[in-house]
C-alpha cells in the first residue's frame, strides 16, 4: 500500500475536524468503518488516500436504541454481526437481520459495519481490476460490450454496476432514514433517496459528499403483523455478492396483504424497489398463483445485456419463491 496516515477520531466532530484539516492541507481522505474492503482496495491501489480516518474508534455509534416515535436508531458503526444478533432487529425488522447475516463470512461480519456495507463500492470486476471507468475518473463502462454476466438488468446506463450491499435493499424495504454527518453539518435522507442512479451521476453510488459519513440509520416503528425476509441467491455459500436478492416486507391482515415492500438487490445500480409489484399485492391473498404473477411483474421492463439475460427468469423466480415462502402455511 502507498503510505498514509491513520487517524482514529474520538467522536464524530473530531472526525469532521480531521476531514477539514486534511482538506486544508490538500490531502485526500477516506472514511472507513471496519476497513476490510477499503484496505483491500488500497492494496490494489484502486484508491490511495493520504489520510485514512478509521471511524471504529468512535464510541457510542454502534448500538441499537429506541427512536422517538417507537422505531429504532442504529449507529452506523454497528458491526454486521452485532446487528444480525440484536434481538429487536431479529424480531421486528427481520429482513435487516437476515440481510446482515448473509454478508460475506463471520470474520468480515465481526468487523464490517452497517454504514460500510451500505456505502461499499461496486464489485464489478472491471472496476476492481483497475480499469479506468466511470467509477474512477474514466468515461466508459467496460461491461457494456464486455463480460456483463453479473451486471444490471434495471436502471443501468451509462454504468451497469449492481449495488453490492445486502443491507441496502432491506433498509429501503423498511423505509429507513439515513442521518448523514459532514463538515458542513448534518442531514437526513430517506433510504429510497440515498442511492444514486448512474444516469444522474455515474461516478457515485449514493448522495454522500466528500468527507460525509453515514452516522446512523433510523427505522420507523414496526407495525403489527409484519413479516419480512431477505432471500439472497449467490454462487457459493459465503463471500460472494448477491446475483439476485429480494428484501420483502408484507403487512398482513389475516391472510390478506395490506401493504408490501419489495426491493431487489443484485439487479440494478441501486436497491431496486418494485412499486408495481407492491401495488399488485395489496388486498390480495398471497397464493402461489399470486406469487407467480408478482414474479412476472417484477421483471417487466428489465433490459438485460448480452450475457445477463438469465437474471430475468432468476429474478422472477426469486420474487415468486420468496413470497410463497413467506406465506406458506405451517
Amino acid at each position, binding site marked *: 500500500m502507498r503510505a498514509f496516515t491513520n487517524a482514529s477520531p474520538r467522536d464524530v466532530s473530531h472526525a469532521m475536524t480531521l476531514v477539514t484539516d486534511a482538506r486544508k492541507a490538500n490531502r485526500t481522505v477516506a472514511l472507513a468503518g471496519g476497513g476490510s474492503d477499503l484496505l483491500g482496495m488500497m492494496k490494489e491501489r484502486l484508491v490511495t488516500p493520504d489520510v485514512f480516518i478509521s471511524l471504529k*474508534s468512535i464510541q457510542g455509534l454502534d448500538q441499537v436504541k429506541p427512536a422517538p416515535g417507537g422505531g429504532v436508531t442504529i449507529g452506523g458503526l454497528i458491526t454486521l454481526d452485532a446487528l444480525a444478533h440484536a434481538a429487536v432487529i431479529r424480531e421486528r425488522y427481520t429482513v435487516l437481520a437476515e440481510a446482515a447475516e448473509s454478508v460475506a463470512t*463471520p470474520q468480515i461480519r465481526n468487523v464490517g459495519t452497517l454504514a460500510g456495507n451500505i456505502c461499499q463500492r461496486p464489485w464489478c470486476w472491471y472496476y476492481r481490476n483497475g480499469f479506468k471507468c466511470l467509477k474512477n475518473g474514466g468515461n466508459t463502462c467496460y461491461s457494456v460490450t464486455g463480460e456483463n454476466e453479473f451486471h444490471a438488468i434495471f436502471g443501468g446506463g451509462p454504468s451497469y454496476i449492481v449495488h453490492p450491499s445486502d443491507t441496502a435493499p432491506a433498509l429501503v424495504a423498511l423505509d429507513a432514514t439515513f442521518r448523514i454527518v459532514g463538515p458542513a453539518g448534518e442531514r437526513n435522507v430517506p433510504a429510497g433517496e440515498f442511492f444514486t442512479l448512474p444516469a444522474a451521476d455515474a461516478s457515485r453510488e449514493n448522495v454522500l459528499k466528500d468527507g460525509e459519513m453515514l452516522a446512523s440509520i433510523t427505522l420507523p416503528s414496526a407495525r403489527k403483523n409484519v413479516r419480512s425476509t431477505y432471500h439472497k441467491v449467490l454462487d457459493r455459500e459465503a463471500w460472494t455478492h448477491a446475483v439476485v436478492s429480494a428484501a420483502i416486507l408484507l403487512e398482513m391482515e389475516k391472510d390478506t396483504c395490506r401493504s408490501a415492500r419489495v426491493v431487489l438487490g443484485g439487479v440494478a445500480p441501486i436497491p431496486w424497489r418494485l412499486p408495481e409489484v407492491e401495488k399488485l399485492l395489496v388486498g390480495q391473498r398471497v397464493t402461489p398463483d399470486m406469487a407467480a404473477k408478482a414474479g412476472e411483474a417484477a421483471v417487466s421492463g428489465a433490459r438485460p445485456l448480452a450475457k445477463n439475460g438469465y437474471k430475468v427468469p432468476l429474478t422472477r423466480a426469486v420474487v415468486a419463491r420468496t413470497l410463497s415462502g413467506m406465506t406458506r402455511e405451517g
Partner: protein
Amino acid sequence: MATRRVSRRQFLEGTGTALTVAAVAPALRAQPSPSAPGTRTSITLTVNGSKRTLEVEDRWTLVEALRDHIGLTGTKIGCDRGECGACTVLLDGKPVYSCSQLAIWADGRAVQTVEGLLNDPLQREFVAHDAPQCGYCTSGQLMSAKALLNTTPHPTADQARAAMTGNICRCSGYNHYVDAVVAAGNNAGGPRAFQASGSGSAESLAVQTSTIGALTTIGHATHRIDAVERTTGKATYSGDVMLPGMLYARVLRSPHPHARIVRIDASKALALPGVKAVVSNENCKVVWGAGSISGGAQYNEEIKKITKHRRYAFNNPVRFVGEPVAAVAAVDRHTAEEALQLIAVDYEPLPFVLDPEEALKPGAPQIWPEGNLSPNARNENVPIGAKRGNVDDGFAASDRVFEDRYSTSFVHNAQMEPRVCVAAWDADKLTVYTPTGGVANCRTDMARDLGIPPEKVRVVCRYMGGNFGNKNQNQDADLIAAVLAKNAGAPVKLELSRKEDFIGVHGRWPTAQYYKVGVKSDGTLQAIQLRGYSGMGPYRKNTGNIAGVELYQCPHIETSISPVYTNRTVSANFRGPEFPQGFFGIQSMMDDVAAKLNMDPVEFILKNMTRKAGDQTPYTSYSLDECIRRGAEAFEWKKRWRSRPGSDSGPIKRGAGVSFMAFRAGLGRSSAVIRVDAKGRYAVHVGVTDVGGGAKTTMGLIAAEELGVPLSQLDVVWGDTDRCPYSVGESGSRTTIMTGYAVVEAARDLKKQIAEKGLPTGDNVLIASANPNPTVQGKVRSTFGAHFVEVEVDAELGRVRVTKYLAVHDCGRIMNPLTARSQIKGGATMGIGMALHEDLVYDRRSGSPLSAGYYGARVATHRDAPEIEVIFIESDDGLGPFGAKSMGESSKVPSPAAVANAVFNAIGVRMKDLPITREKIVAALAGREVRA
C-alpha cells in the same frame, strides 16, 4: 433536508439510552493528531496473554506485525485480501482476518493466535481426524473453531460449518475439520482414543477388502508424523523463513497480453532510498528452462536444452497479462512496492489472441514465428495423435453415429500457500527456500538456468502449503529472487500476491473437444474420434494432451489434439493435468450416447470399459468392474438414477451420475538413503517435501514395515537437498510408488548389512542407499475407480447441490487409510468446484483476466462441500512398495464427469461447457414448463 451544526453537547445528549449494547471492544486509543506517513507509532497490544509494545507504520497490517515483527509466524497469509481465511486470529475473542486489519487498530486490544492455543483438545481432535493436510489453512481453521467452542461448547456439524465457512481449505474437502470440531465438543477434555467418528455418516477406517493380507505397520490409520507441527503453528513454510539482512522483492508485471518492451527506465526506482537492486530483461538474461519445453516434456533435461521457444525469467516481448517485466529488492516490502510504481515502461502493444481455435485460424496473431500450434518434443508443429484401427471403417460398421462438442475452462490450483522464495548466496553457493514439491528437480533446474554446478545449489522446503502440480521444478520466482540476491549482496524474499499466483504461475489448460462416436444398437462401441484443442498460454509447460479415449474398449480410435499458444496465463500441471478435462468430455459424450440408446449408464460403462490397456496389453491387476459394481450397489444406483432424465416434477429435481477411471500407476526411478546407529535408531533420508499428501509419514510407514521396527524407532529426514537424495518430486502421483520403492530397497539392503555385520557400535553407523529404476514388463499398471454422485438442482434458481457422493478407488494396497481418505475427499471436492464454479474469465478486448483470486474463482467453502464417502478396494499386484498404486490425483480425475452426468440426470439437459454455473442452468431451463 435541513442541515444544522451539531454541537458536542447536542451529540452527547442525542445518544440517549442503549436498547441493546452491541459487543463493543475496549476503547481504542484515539490519536491526538495524525502523524506523517512513514513515521512509526508505538502501540501496546496483548498477544496470547502477554503485553507487547512495538513501533508500527500506519500501513502495516496486523498479520504483518504478528509475523514479521513479533515473530509469530503460525498465522499465515493466503491472499492478503480477506478472501481465504488463512490469517484468521481472535481479536478480543472474535475471529477476524488479520490481513484486513491495521496493526495500529490493535492498540490496547487482545489478540489470540494459534501459538496461544496450548495443547487444546481442539488441536488433538484436528490431529486425530487428520484435518490438516498441507497445514497452511489450519491455524485459521483452528481460531475460527476455537471462537465457536468458546460460545457454543457442543456444536453440531452445521454450526461448525457456519462458523468456519470463512476459512477455505483446498486440500481436504472439509469433512474432517467438521468431524474434529464436533468431536471436540463431544469429548471436552481428556485424552481420547484415536478413532474417526464421522458426523452422521457411518465412516469406518477399515478398508473394505478383500484378498490381501494385513501388514504390521502399513494399512493401519496413523497420524501424520508432523501433524502436531501443522496444528500448532510451528511448521515453518518458505514464507516464514527470516534471514539476517533479508531484503524483500516485488515483481512488476505486464498489463498487456502481448507487447514489445521498448524501454524500461528504472532510474527513479533505483534512486528510492531502501532499494538495493532492480532487474529486468535488460540486465538479466537468465533462461527459465522448465518454463517452456518442446512437447511439454517436463522431466526431460535434454529437451529443455534444445527447446526453440525459449522462456526467460524476463521476456521481451511479453506474451500474457501478468508476465514479469522487472523486479525490485528493497529493505522492506512496502518500499519494494513503491519502487515498482517508479519503474517506467514503454510498451508497444501487439495483436493478441485468447482462444485456441481462433489462434489456429489463418490470419491469427502469431505468438511464435512458426505459428500457434505448439511443437512436440522433436520441435515439429504437429498435433498429438493416437490411432487404432480405422475410424472410417468403425463408423461404417456402426448402427448409430453421434457428434458433439464439449469444453472445459481454465481452473487454477488455488493452493493455500501463495508462491514465495527466499534466496541467499554464501560466496558462490546458493540456497533457496522455496515451496517446491521436487527439491532435487528444483536444484537441477536452478543450476542449469543459472549456469552453476548443482553442488553449488541447495534447495530447502521443510513445509509446503499445497501445490496440486504447480510447484515441482523451479519457478521464475526462484530465479528472480536468486538474481536479485546476487545483485544486492543480501538474501531476498520474493512474495507473490494471490492474484500474481493465479495469473503468474499456471493452472489447468482449457479445452475444446469434438467427439464423433459410433456404436452398435446394443451400445457396443465401434469408433471414437476426438479432435481437441488445448489453450496452453504462450509457453509450453506441459503436454496439453486430452486423456479419456483410453478408458474404452473400442476397435477403432483416432485422436488429434492440438496444444495451442494463446496470450493467456500459462497452462500446465494441475492434479491429473490431461485427465479431468478429457474425462468430463468423453464421459459426458458416452453418458449422452447411453441416454439416447435408453441404456443405464452403468450398463454402458460395464459393456465398454477398458479391459486391457490399449485393448491389447493386460493390466498388472484389474478391478475396474468391481469398483463400478460395488460402488453402484453401495450408492443404491438403481434407486437414485432416473431412467427418464429430468423427470422429477417441480422445480427441485434430483438425479444421479457416474464416472469411472483408469489412471497411471507405473514404476520409475527414485532414491532413498537409510542409516542406523548404535542405539538402533533409523534415519530415512528421502527427497520429499510433503505437499499435503502425507509423504513423510508414508515413507516412514514403508521403512518401518520393511525394517520390521515400529514407526517410533525411525526419523524421516526430508526437504533439503543437502541432506536428502533425489526424489522424483511430488507430482504425478508417483512418490509413494517410486520413492516408496526406493525406501523398500534401501531397507532391504540395510537389513542385509545388519545381518552380516550386526548393528553398529559406538559412533559408527550403517548406511544403505538405493536408486532403483524398476519397470513393468509386458503389462500396464493402472489404478482404477468409480465415482457416484447424486445432485439436487433447483431448476428455477439454478443452484446445484451435491446430496450424495461416493468415491470408490483401487489404489493398490493403502499405506495409511487415514491420510488416504483425506486425499480422496480433497480431490473429489476440487472436482465439484471444477464442474460447477471455477473459471478464469478474461476481458476479450484488453486480454486481461477479470476473476483471478479466491473470490473470483469461487473456490468452495465449508458450506459448499458435501460429505464424501470413500470405499477402497485393495489389491496387491506384487509391484511397487507392498503393492501400493497411485492415489494423489485419482479422485480429481473422474469427479467433474460424475457431477456433470448427475446434473444431466436431474434436469434432462446436457450441460456441455464447464463450469456448469447457475447462469447456464437458468438460461438452459428458462421458458421450460415447470409443473408445480
